[in-house]
């Protein structure tokens, strides 16, 4: 019953009622203000520009302090970012200011990769915030927000147009951060040249689709000033921390032999406009834009990459859960499938190698058999020959015995003859005998080696 009542009410139009007396919720903004004052504010500025163009000096001039800064060298191998955090206080308002400097920007001979470290840094800050947001136990109100709220892009005062590096870098940055282009060292451009230069820069930015930060013109109190300032972009600034006596005041200025350029003189440069816009009027809007536009864009892209979808408009946490589960199942399924595949492959491979090994074994066996047969053959032949030889030896021995008996029956007469004969006879049998001996030895040797 109650649920349907609520439904009906939320579908009706909201009615405007007038109050009978003073209730007191008009103090809500004040409560908010006092809460945020106690919490303190956080602001992050990124300064992008060539070495020596005046980034550190401008920061010192804007915030009227001397932030520690060493002069950078021109010979860095690449671009790297140097973030520094400071705690400032004015009346009772605390500001945690982070200034990120690009060191080595524009110095290399090949500047095609110069924008990458900057984009990576911005993305990392977004990523850190996203991780914090997605945590189970999170403390966003305590979190030190390092996301870049504003990027001041310093343009060199050539007087012609933007440099190619400026264009390329700004195009890469315009969807990730609020960009305000400023013309640095503007005391080198005369008034007429400046006017032409500004028009040229803005037309180049527009024709290349670079979206720079527009001061908001929908907030009643500041519409007028903002829209007039929008027409003065890019601001031509001069920075200085040295003081020069002008009239009877000491003002921040640069002293030249031909005159004194006063930083806070509106007819000399647009420094005052920049300070107004950046700090005094639109700082909060810059933070909001960073969170509502740039960060949301980053988050959406990142989550879409991971495969999440917003199919259910009013129960977003649930769909996150569901899609998470679905993704998990899918992932596990994938994993299993891959495992199976790998196992299959492994088994196949094992089978293959087994088959190969069996083949080889069989071949070896065959060879062995063959060799064995050959060996048998040879042995048989050798045996035959041996038998023959033995027969010959036996025959010879018999002849020998016969001859000896013959010689014994006729001992005296035939001494000399006997000697001769024996001499002859001994020569023959020895040779024969040695011959037979060597053959026997050879046979023995062969038999032993073959066995």
């Amino acid at each position, binding site marked *: 019953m109650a649920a349907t009542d609520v439904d009906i009410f939320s579908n009706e139009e909201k009615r405007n009622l007038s109050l009978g007396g003073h209730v007191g919720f008009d103090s809500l903004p004040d409560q908010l203000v006092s809460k945020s004052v106690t919490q303190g504010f956080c602001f992050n500025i990124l300064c992008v520009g060539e070495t020596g163009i005046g980034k550190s000096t401008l920061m010192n001039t804007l915030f009227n302090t001397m932030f520690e800064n060493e002069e950078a060298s021109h010979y860095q191998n690449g671009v790297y970012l140097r973030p520094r955090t400071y705690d400032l206080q004015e009346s009772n308002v605390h500001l945690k200011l982070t200034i990120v400097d690009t060191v080595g920007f524009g*110095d290399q001979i090949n500047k095609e990769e110069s924008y990458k470290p900057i984009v990576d840094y911005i993305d990392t800050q977004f990523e850190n915030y996203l991780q914090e947001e997605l945590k189970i136990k999170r403390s966003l109100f305590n979190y030190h927000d390092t996301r870049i709220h504003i990027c001041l892009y310093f343009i060199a005062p050539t007087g012609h147009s933007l440099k190619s590096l400026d264009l390329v870098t700004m195009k890469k940055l315009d969807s990730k951060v609020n960009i305000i282009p400023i013309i640095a060292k503007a005391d080198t451009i005369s008034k007429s040249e400046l006017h032409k230069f500004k028009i040229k820069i803005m037309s180049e930015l527009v*024709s290349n689709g670079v979206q720079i930060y527009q001061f908001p013109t929908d907030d009643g109190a500041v519409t007028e000033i903002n829209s007039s300032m929008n027409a003065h972009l890019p601001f031509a600034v001069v920075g200085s921390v040295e003081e020069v006596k002008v009239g009877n005041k000491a003002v921040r200025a640069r002293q030249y032999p031909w005159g004194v350029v006063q930083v806070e003189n509106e007819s000399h440069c647009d420094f005052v406009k920049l300070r107004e816009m950046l700090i005094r009027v639109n700082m909060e809007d810059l933070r909001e834009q960073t969170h509502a536009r740039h960060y949301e864009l980053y988050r959406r892209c990142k989550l879409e990459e991971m495969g999440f979808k917003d199919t259910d408009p009013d129960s977003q946490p649930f769909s996150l859960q569901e899609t998470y589960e679905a993704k998990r199942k899918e992932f596990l399924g994938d994993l299993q499938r891959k495992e199976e595949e790998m196992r299959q492959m492994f088994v196949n491979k094992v089978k293959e190698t087994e088959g190969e090994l069996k083949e080889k074994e069989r071949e070896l066996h065959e060879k062995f058999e063959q060799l064995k047969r050959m060996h048998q053959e040879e042995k048989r032949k050798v045996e035959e020959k041996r038998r023959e030889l033995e027969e010959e030896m036996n025959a010879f021995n018999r002849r020998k015995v016969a001859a000896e008996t013959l010689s014994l029956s006729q001992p005296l007469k035939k001494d000399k003859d006997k000697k001769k004969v024996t001499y002859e006879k001994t020569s023959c049998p020895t040779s024969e005998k040695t011959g037979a001996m060597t053959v026997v030895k050879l046979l023995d040797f062969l038999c032993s080696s073959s066995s």
Partner: protein
Amino acid sequence: MTTNIRYKSRFMKSEESEDKQYVGFATLPNQVHRKSVKKGFDFTLMVAGESGLGKSTLVNSLFLTDLYKDRKLLNAEERINQTVEITKHTVDIEEKGVKLKLTIVDTPGFGDAVNNNECWKPITDYIDQQFEQYFRDESGLNRKNILDNRVHCCLYFIPPFGHGLRPVDVEFMKALHEKVNIVPLISKADCLTPNEVKKLKDRVRDEIEHFGIKVYQFPECDSDEEEEFKQMDKELKECTPFAVIGSNTVVEARGQRVRGRLYPWGIVEVENQSHCDFVKLRNMLIRSHMHDLKDVTCDVHYENYRAHCIQEMTSKLAQDNRTDSPLPILPLPTPDVETERLIKMKDEELKRMQEMLEKMQQQMHEKDQ
């Protein structure tokens, strides 16, 4: 101006001692003067540096002409992949009867692309080409009308927005310092206070020395020059690299009409020595050292190129064709002892054979007779 005065004073002195020893060759400088005025001079100046540093304005200010009418500048997106071009403008200007054929070689696109690897190559190629052309003409048969297009001086513009030389500056100067006289300049000096100018000049000088870059050095003065001249020369040398501002618009300052730049906080006068070094540059480039620049180009850079060229040619020829070369070959490496001995032996044999032949011939003659 000062040089003219010097000639005249010398002439006067010799006239005083004219009684016995006056031969008359003291008029030689005047003769040279007359002939050169008749012949006319030529000078080729190259300007190099990134766009937007005021090169064209400075050239216009130096020579008080407008060389860059109807110039088309590229947009940033067109410049992303720009290559370096070489453009030449030639003008004939005349002053008090002296004609000067001035050629300005411009290098649009240098250092403008995102990837500037070897962006100085077209420039070095151009300079080498001019040397080569002159070399060919000089070695040719008809040498009457040689066109001298060699680059006599290169003004290199260093941006004042940084802390010193950048890698691209260093690489460019190192590639060119042995081919042309380099005069480095700090451009758009109206963005630097006097302290900053001094710091930057010291920095640039140190870095030039550190990297071993040979920029154009002013010749030493002779010891018999006047003190004033020596003083000027010393100041000139201490002021390098010159910090210049250019302008072609005339503004009203302190009741006078001067060339300058008008700012809300003051007027920068181009020809005011306390504002910038434009006057020093102009004096150096045009009034006192123009001829020296030409001489150094002819005597040093061109001779280096020529020697290098010839050496390459001979080493190539020696490789291809040992017996037959029109140019004198370098001596062959000394043969070793073994071959020498063999050669000697063979020689002796040959001699003996010849002697025997002669004897035999004699015998035959005797027999005949």
